[in-house]
């Protein structure tokens, strides 16, 4: 077999982190090659290097395509060679027709004037290839996600593609559309096309992949040949998580009290696609002093679960019941959720957590202005005292609390967000990726704060994509997959392999 693509010794560094370190990838002509790994393992970064999103010179290492060394400066460069990538987020322009979308940036034209006849004819052919019966004039936005994905593929085919890269192509699709898409990939393979597929769904990979390359922490772990060896899903999981627990977690003696919070049959629909369940019949409980984890891959519905509980700040047609200390909660908006003693520490602190133009003091008090004001007038002095208290307690490293939060480092920003929510005096804290993108030292401090909160008898619900973090911190871990809880694992029985099994949907239903 001939290698169509070879990436050798790819190293890509961002300020502060090495996203890829000496990664090798070899894809043979005519195969479907799967790229697997945890969130943040470096899969998407590697594909961005390959497709020229990160231009030549911004990384180290060599790319050989068809035996020739390539130095792509832009996506255009890689597309000219026949490397086409379909990103996770669909990139169709909803207001344009299918035909316009397919030939966007690649218009069928003579001297700048578009030949609509040829465009339409070519579009019809392409749509036929991907098995789509819609008219080329249909507006892309009116199509379902499954069909949009097919249009994306047709668009890729229009570019005389030699290597098709699909980044999580089925993440947003339902079962039937996924099946359809995978069948299409196999058909293309028969015709001799090579593709790389990034996916978290083990069963799909087992179905279509010829070989699998596993990345972990920005390095190549191994390449498995599915055709030659008997590869089991467990084998793949082991490759994905087989990291030793080098992170350190503070010691803690859990003292778990009575039942604090409970959700029963919690179900949430997607706000724009009411027939798609994002959270589907989820039930769980959190006790006082307990740190409960929620594991899951990207798109499993964890953030959506948290936000829908937090005053219905996400989703439509929310059903199910919430209880706090035995009493049912009806939370219609966020102020009610805050009053009920729930805090949601958001995932993306820059976008959802902080007002970057405002200082530490104002960010700290934003969610509990009522408690430091009289007759709706904020007591400035008390505000400064409280904010100063948090600065000391949380060890926020800053010259003063009048510093704009936009100028702080990630770890310190996260401490400000935590301060804001601790100041609301919550009983239940939902932490969504509390340590994403912050350095090891700050992580340790955040872990210590979380421990203190649990010690004070608060319930902690912690969403994290880092399995070692969940294993190191949580007393109990729920695992979520495609909107459902697929397992619950107590600390003593938890292992990365077991969690990963549930995360990829290969578990028993609890």
């Amino acid at each position, binding site marked *: 077999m001939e290698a169509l693509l070879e990436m050798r010794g790819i190293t890509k560094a961002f300020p502060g982190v090495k996203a890829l370190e000496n990664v090798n990838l070899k894809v043979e002509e005519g195969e479907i090659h799967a790229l697997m790994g945890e969130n943040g393992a470096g899969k998407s970064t590697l594909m961005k290097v390959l497709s020229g999103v990160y231009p030549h010179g911004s990384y180290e290492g060599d790319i050989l395509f068809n035996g020739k060394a390539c130095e792509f400066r832009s996506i255009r460069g890689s597309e000219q060679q026949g490397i086409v990538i379909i990103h996770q987020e669909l990139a169709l322009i909803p207001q344009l027709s299918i035909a316009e979308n397919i030939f966007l940036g690649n218009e069928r034209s003579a001297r700048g004037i578009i030949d609509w006849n040829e465009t339409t004819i070519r579009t019809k052919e392409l749509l036929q290839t991907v098995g789509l019966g819609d008219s080329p004039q249909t507006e892309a936005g009116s199509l379902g996600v499954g069909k949009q994905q097919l249009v994306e593929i047709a668009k890729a085919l229009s570019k005389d593609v030699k290597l098709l890269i699909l980044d999580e192509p089925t993440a947003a699709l339902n079962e039937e559309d996924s099946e359809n898409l995978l069948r299409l990939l196999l058909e293309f393979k028969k015709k001799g096309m090579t593709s790389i597929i990034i996916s978290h769904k083990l069963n799909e990979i087992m179905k279509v992949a010829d070989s699998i390359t596993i990345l972990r922490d920005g390095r190549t772990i191994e390449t498995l040949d599915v055709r030659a060896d008997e590869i089991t899903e467990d084998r793949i999981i082991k490759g994905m998580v087989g990291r030793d627990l080098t992170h350190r977690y503070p010691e803690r003696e859990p003292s778990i009290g009575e039942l604090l919070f409970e959700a029963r049959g919690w179900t949430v629909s997607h706000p724009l696609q009411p027939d798609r369940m994002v959270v589907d019949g989820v039930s769980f409980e959190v006790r006082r002093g307990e740190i409960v984890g929620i594991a899951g891959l990207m798109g499993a519905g964890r953030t959506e679960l948290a936000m829908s509980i937090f005053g219905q700040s996400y989703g439509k047609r929310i059903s199910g019941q919430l209880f706090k200390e035995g009493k049912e909660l009806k939370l219609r908006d966020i102020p009610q959720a805050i009053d009920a003693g729930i805090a949601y520490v958001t995932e993306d602190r820059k976008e959802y957590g902080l007002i970057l133009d405002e200082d530490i003091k104002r960010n700290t008090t934003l969610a509990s202005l009522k408690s430091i004001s009289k007759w*709706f007038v904020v007591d400035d002095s008390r505000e400064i005292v409280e904010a100063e208290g948090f600065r000391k307690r949380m060890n926020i490293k800053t010259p003063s609390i009048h510093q704009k939060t936009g100028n702080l480092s990630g770890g310190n920003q996260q401490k400000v967000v935590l301060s804001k929510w601790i100041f609301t005096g919550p009983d239940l804290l939902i932490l969504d990726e509390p340590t994403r993108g912050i350095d090891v030292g700050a992580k340790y401090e955040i872990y210590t704060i979380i421990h203190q909160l649990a010690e004070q008898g608060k319930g902690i619900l912690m969403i994290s994509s880092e399995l070692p973090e969940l294993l190191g911190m949580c007393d109990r871990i729920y695992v979520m997959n495609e909107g459902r809880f697929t397992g619950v694992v107590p600390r003593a029985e938890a292992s990365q392999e077991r969690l990963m099994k549930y995360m990829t949907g290969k578990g028993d239903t609890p």
Partner: protein
Amino acid sequence: MTTALRALRGNFRQYGMFIALLFIMLLFQLLSGGILLKPLNITNLILQNSYILILAIGMLLVIITGHIDLSVGSIAAFVGAISAILMVQHQMPYPAAIVISLLIGAAVGAWQGFWVAYMRIPSFIVTLAGMLLFRGLTMLVLNGKSVAPFPNEFRSISTGFVPDLPFGWELHGATILAGIIVSILYLFMEWRARLVQKRYSFEQLSLPLAAARAAGVILILNLFTYVLASYKGLPNILILLMVLVVIYTFVMRKTVMGRHIYALGGNEKAARLSGVKTKKVTFWVFVNMGAMAALAGLVFAARLNAATPKAGVNFELDAIAAAFIGGASASGGVGTVVGAIVGGLVMGVMNNGMSLIGLGIDYQQGIKGLVLLLAVAFDLYNKNKAS
């Protein structure tokens, strides 16, 4: 000393514009051969710009939330027309007419706020529609003609002066007295603020520096009242303006509502997830803008002593320019009431000064445009340098 420097640097944007205002005043004082700062001219400056300054305060709130309101000129004209019909044609007593006019303005604001906040239609579109709609309604209710004259009591809002003390002094005694009283109040509040700072051991300006600053403020204030007192004294409208500035500064700096407005403009998603009722706040900001536009419309009608179909044309542009020159950010979340007032005065002094030296309206427009552009560019440059 370092704390003083830091405090200065922190407030540089606001002080910077204040210094620019002083510079512009000085420049035109020289160019006009000393006419600009004559008591008569200073009084005129206040009367001429009062309605724009009122609009600028309301506009500032709208801009802080990240929106814009293009309809305020038309709303001002519309409310002025209604008030004329009530007072002139139906002989309604002026206090009742004023209350009804303000309520109509608030209702118009509620109408636009509803579309912006709850239907999520861009404010640019909603208020552009409002600009056309209420201009049309103004012409309709006025039948294309001017309605005049207003009762004298109503006119005195815009053209009247505070009555003098009955001593027959050469200077307007009440005005001088007002300056002294405000100075004492100011000193008292500064002193109390320092006490609080001391009690909580916050960092504070050193005593000599604070004293120097207080002395500067009091000097300027009393010079100002002295100048006014050597003409007819305090205009009524200035008192109204001062009250508005104090109230809105207080609301924006000290109240929960003010905080929510800033937070909403700074990061709507984060504000919402922190429990700010973002739609409600946006809605009320537009209601407020409507009421302020109505007030400006009344003041303008009273000054002109007539309601005309063409009243208030381009007011929105002056108000928007004032807010931006005063340091508000087009992306929302940043701006101060005092800044907007200073911005409005920069525009006002330039209008007045350029007229005094006999510059044509063509040059005036062009120069004002350039000043707006340069002020915002300077502001952005400073911001980028800081981060």
